[in-house]
C-alpha cells in the first residue's frame, strides 16, 4: 500500500499521464501536417507564414506540456532552434538579395524567371512561397524559444519540484 502511494505521488509529480501522452502522440503529427499545409498553401487559400509558423510552434508547445522540456529538446535542441530563428530571416532577405543580384529591385521576384523554368508571374508566386517558408521557420523557432525561456525562467530545466 505504501509503495503504491509513493508510485502514485511520483507519477503525479512528474506529470506523466498515459491518456494525455497518447492523445498528444496522436494529435501532434496532424497538427504539424496542417501547419505545413497552411504555410505551403498560403498563396492559394487563407493562411501564410505567420499563421502556419504559430501552429507549428503550438505543436512543439503541446509536446512540452504533455511530456517535459527535455523530451522536446531531444527533438529540437536549442542550437537547432537558434539556427532556425536566423535561417528564416536569412531565407527572406536572401531571396530579396537574389533578386537584386539578378538585376532587379530588392524583393522584386519577377526577375526569378531567369533562373526558374516558369513565367514571370509564376515566378512571383514562387517568390511569395519562398518568403512564406522563411517567415514560417522564423516564427516557429522564435515562438518556441520565447515559450521555453519564459516557461522555465531561462533555466531550460524542469522546475525544482518536478525534478527526480
Amino acid at each position, binding site marked *: 500500500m505504501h509503495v503504491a502511494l509513493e508510485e502514485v505521488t511520483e507519477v503525479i509529480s512528474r506529470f506523466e499521464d498515459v491518456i494525455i501522452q497518447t492523445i498528444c502522440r496522436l494529435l501532434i503529427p496532424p497538427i504539424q501536417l496542417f501547419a505545413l499545409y497552411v504555410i505551403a498553401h498560403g498563396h492559394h487559400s487563407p493562411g501564410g507564414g505567420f499563421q502556419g509558423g504559430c501552429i507549428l510552434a503550438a505543436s512543439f508547445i503541446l509536446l512540452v506540456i504533455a511530456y517535459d522540456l527535455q523530451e522536446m529538446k531531444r527533438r529540437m535542441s536549442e542550437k537547432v532552434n537558434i539556427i532556425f*530563428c536566423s535561417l528564416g530571416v536569412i531565407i527572406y532577405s536572401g531571396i530579396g538579395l537574389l533578386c537584386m543580384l539578378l538585376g532587379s529591385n530588392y524583393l522584386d521576384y519577377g526577375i526569378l524567371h531567369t533562373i526558374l523554368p516558369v513565367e514571370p508571374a509564376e515566378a*512571383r508566386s514562387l517568390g511569395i512561397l519562398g518568403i512564406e517558408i522563411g517567415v514560417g521557420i522564423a516564427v516557429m523557432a522564435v515562438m518556441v524559444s520565447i515559450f521555453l525561456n519564459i516557461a522555465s525562467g531561462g533555466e531550460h530545466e524542469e522546475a525544482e519540484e518536478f525534478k527526480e
Partner: protein
Amino acid sequence: MLITGALLIYATVDMPDWGDANSPANTHVSPRYLEKTIEETATPNAVTSVLGDYRSYDTLGETTVIFTAGVVCMLLLRRSQK
C-alpha cells in the same frame, strides 16, 4: 506635446470616413491590386500577394521584429546551466 496631439486629432477630422467607398484608398489602390493580382503574381489569394509581393518590405520588417523579439527574450532570460 499637447499642441502636437491637438494638431493630430484635428488632422484626423479630414480623413475619409471609415469604410467610405469613395476614399482614395478604395478607388485607386485596392481595385488595382484586386484586378491585377492574378495577372501579375499568379496568386489567387490577394491578401498574400499584397503582403508578400507588393508590400514585401513591410513583411520583411515584421519578420525582423519577431526575430528581434526572440533574440532579446533569449538574451534577457536565458541562463546557462552550470
